[in-house]
């Protein structure tokens, strides 16, 4: 099930909230687990077994780690961690990367091994990293073991962040799993946050997606047209992903959870290093804590640090998708980040801020073209067209500019923190508390209604007989 669907907005969310607020506190975790399983099974009735296996597997690994400590055999704990890593990453690798591996081998060797053709279980990259964070933290004795399988299952399967993150580390919500405070104030804040995210996804991201889809399908784009397309994709991916995170955080608040922020206006960064501190924060911090630092981070000299960065960014690319374009995308960021660590960051600090902004935006813009095109040749062709391989502008550039300039400008302005800070200052300066609340409610209600309208509208599909 996706958030921007009629079933979710009209049935699932209101019914779950109604039940959640109506049942006694001790029933809320089982209720949330059941609701999450329905949410997942809605789109993946069979693959729910994989998620349940993953849940039980790491629940048992946690218990085993505790038991080994109690029995005075801590030297065996490493084996349990290895088992957990092998099981989780093995499953992720099998479902996500087997066909990628086979097609790569076929391409290199000229063989024709059959692909296994299994669909990727939704959310497996997210929940695998969540369960791993639990086992690793238990191994490090940083968190207590969860003995209640319902509570643990609820953490792994919790529907707000199940499909598109943020990756919630167990320790970040460990306390809230067993005890949460609810009240109209945080619930209201959650509703507002949810409507913001819904609006970002449905009203903005989908509009930008349509622009990119159209332009990217055409060959021989003039520079202006290609840049409009790439900018639209850059905004689509931001509003889509951060919108989903907003919705997840908002629903979390409605249920009494406080998830950590996942985006912090990444497009206003002055360097790529800063960009990655603001973009998909939960993934960056996962890789930093569970891979980069254990590999030695920057503590073992420069060559080793570069190797660590290479490993982390190659895997970060691969995490985003099973394709060479994702690997190249990750390594492209490795090159930029390595250059920044070696000398570029110092230069950028001395230069006017605008230089850093332009450099970052351009670097990220190009990265998204690599990300979006699963065919490397096509990505290269598109990047060349952005730099004028097919001329600077033509009649269709004028059309795309006229049709999309306003929405792209609006998207650009909304993707930096200026508007939010300005609006917050203006609203907070109002004397009347009820007026402040009224404005926010009106904005939220407007976003919700328009988004719902667009969800319904997307089903409006005139059947043109002449095509059949």
């Amino acid at each position: 099930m996706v958030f921007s669907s009629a079933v979710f907005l009209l049935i699932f969310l209101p019914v779950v909230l109604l039940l959640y607020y109506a049942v006694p506190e001790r029933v809320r975790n089982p209720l949330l687990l059941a609701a999450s399983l329905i949410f997942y099974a809605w789109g993946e009735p069979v693959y729910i077994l994989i998620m349940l296996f993953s849940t039980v597997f790491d629940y048992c690994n946690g218990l085993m780690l505790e038991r080994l400590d109690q029995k005075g055999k801590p030297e065996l704990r490493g084996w349990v961690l290895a088992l957990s890593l092998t099981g989780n990453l093995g499953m992720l690798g099998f479902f996500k990367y087997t066909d990628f591996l086979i097609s790569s081998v076929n391409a290199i060797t000229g063989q024709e091994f059959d692909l296994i053709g299994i669909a990727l279980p939704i959310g497996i990259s997210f929940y695998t990293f969540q369960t791993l964070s639990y086992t690793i933290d238990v191994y490090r004795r940083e968190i207590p073991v969860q003995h209640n399988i319902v509570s643990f299952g609820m953490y792994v399967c919790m529907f707000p962040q199940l499909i598109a993150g943020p990756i919630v580390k167990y320790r970040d919500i460990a306390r809230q799993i067993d005890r949460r405070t609810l009240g109209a104030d945080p619930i209201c804040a959650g509703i507002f946050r949810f409507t913001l995210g819904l609006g970002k996804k449905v009203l903005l991201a989908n509009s930008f997606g349509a622009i990119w889809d159209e332009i990217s399908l055409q060959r021989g784009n003039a520079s202006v047209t290609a840049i409009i397309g790439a900018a639209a994709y850059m905004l689509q991916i931001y509003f889509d992903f951060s919108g989903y995170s907003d919705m997840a955080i908002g629903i979390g608040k409605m249920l009494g959870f406080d998830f950590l922020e996942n985006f912090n206006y990444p497009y206003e960064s002055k360097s790529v290093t800063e960009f990655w501190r603001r973009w998909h924060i939960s993934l960056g911090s996962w890789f930093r804590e569970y891979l980069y630092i254990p590999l030695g981070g920057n503590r073992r000299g420069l060559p080793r640090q570069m190797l660590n960065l290479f490993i982390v960014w190659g895997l970060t690319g691969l995490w985003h998708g099973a394709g060479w374009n994702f690997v190249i995308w990750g390594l492209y960021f490795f090159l930029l980040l390595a250059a920044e660590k070696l000398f570029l960051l110092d230069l950028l600090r001395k230069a006017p801020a605008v230089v850093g902004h332009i450099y970052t935006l351009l670097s990220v813009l190009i990265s998204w073209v690599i990300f979006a095109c699963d065919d490397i040749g096509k990505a290269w062709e598109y990047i060349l067209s952005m730099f004028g391989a097919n001329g600077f502008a033509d009649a269709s550039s004028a059309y795309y500019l006229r049709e999309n300039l306003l929405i792209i400008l609006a998207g650009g302005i909304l993707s930096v923190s200026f508007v939010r800070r300005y609006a917050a200052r203006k609203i907070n300066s109002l004397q009347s508390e009820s007026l402040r609340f009224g404005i926010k409610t009106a904005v939220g209600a407007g976003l919700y209604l328009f988004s719902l309208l667009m969800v319904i509208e997307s089903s409006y599909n005139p059947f043109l007989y002449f095509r059949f």
Partner: protein
Amino acid sequence: MNIFDRIKNTLKIPDKINSRQICVVVFVAFPLAILAAIIIKPDNPVSVNENRTLKTGGDIRWEIFDGGFQEDLENCLSDQFPLRDNLKSAETGIRLRLGSGCIGGTYVGSDGRLFQRLLESDVDVDKCVRYAAKINRIAEQTGIETYVMYVPSAGISLRESMPYGAPMYDYDALFSALKRELKSAHVIDLSEALFGRPEYYYATDHHWTAAGAAAAYHEWIAAHGDEPTDEKAPEIITVSSNFRGTLWSRVPNAAIRGEPLWAFRVNDDVIVEADGMEISLYDYSALQTKDKYNFFEGGNHGILTLTNPNVKNGRTLMILKDSFANSFLPCIAGDYSKIIMVDERYAFIDAGQLAVDTGADEIAVIREIISVG
């Protein structure tokens, strides 16, 4: 503690509730109220404007494991949403007022004229070329005179009326590629006749008007070596004053007005048979429906045969066509004793064999250039 008290406690609702608590209640109650409205109101089985059946509660499959139930429920909620057509119209109205040049895959021209957006990626050039090669093979193998009349899409013919720079497929390249394939057929180039003439295409539909068909008829006559004159085309009559075509369905807003539907005056003696039944050349009942273009022969048929007892030349024409030919047929009804019209989307036949079996003297291909068999 009863349920209401528990909710009241959770939200810490005092005897006099505050605005935040109201907000939470409304957020939960509003979607449920819409859901109740969808359940209570009678199901609407058909969307006249979209020309399709809607998913109703009774249509929902109870197949959970293959996703049928989930898909049907989602579609049912969207299709049965209260005031769905009005909301779509309002949304379209906002886009029109904002000056949007493209709504729902439809270009909105400066004069409110609608055009189907057909990008390079929407056209299967290889398939078009393969079809042209097939027609050429039929012409060569049967030895029957073959005429091919490719109709340019409205957005190609009326580029001046489109939003400036709005991309469309490359007509010239496509036409040249198809013409190269059709070495053994007469390819009738309609570009000169149709380009730049708004009255030749409907403003709310992708088809040509009777005037456009008449202009094409002139080219048809010329291709046959005759001198085209105005007298040779039948008289054009208005059969409806409020035609809103397929493109209007994508941009359904009252601001875009209906237009006249035109046809040719023909004598009543023609006998038309389709799918084993006698039908009328003009289906007047279609004028009472949304889909008024079905006025011509009642819509598309696999094989349609028109016999004109007034024509004594004994000539038979076989037409391979799409819906553009439907409004063209009355124009040539007076030129042949028999016309067999085949829509290969509905009739899976060997067209060359059929031409031989029926003793066709001529074969014609009449279709929009991007449509293939």
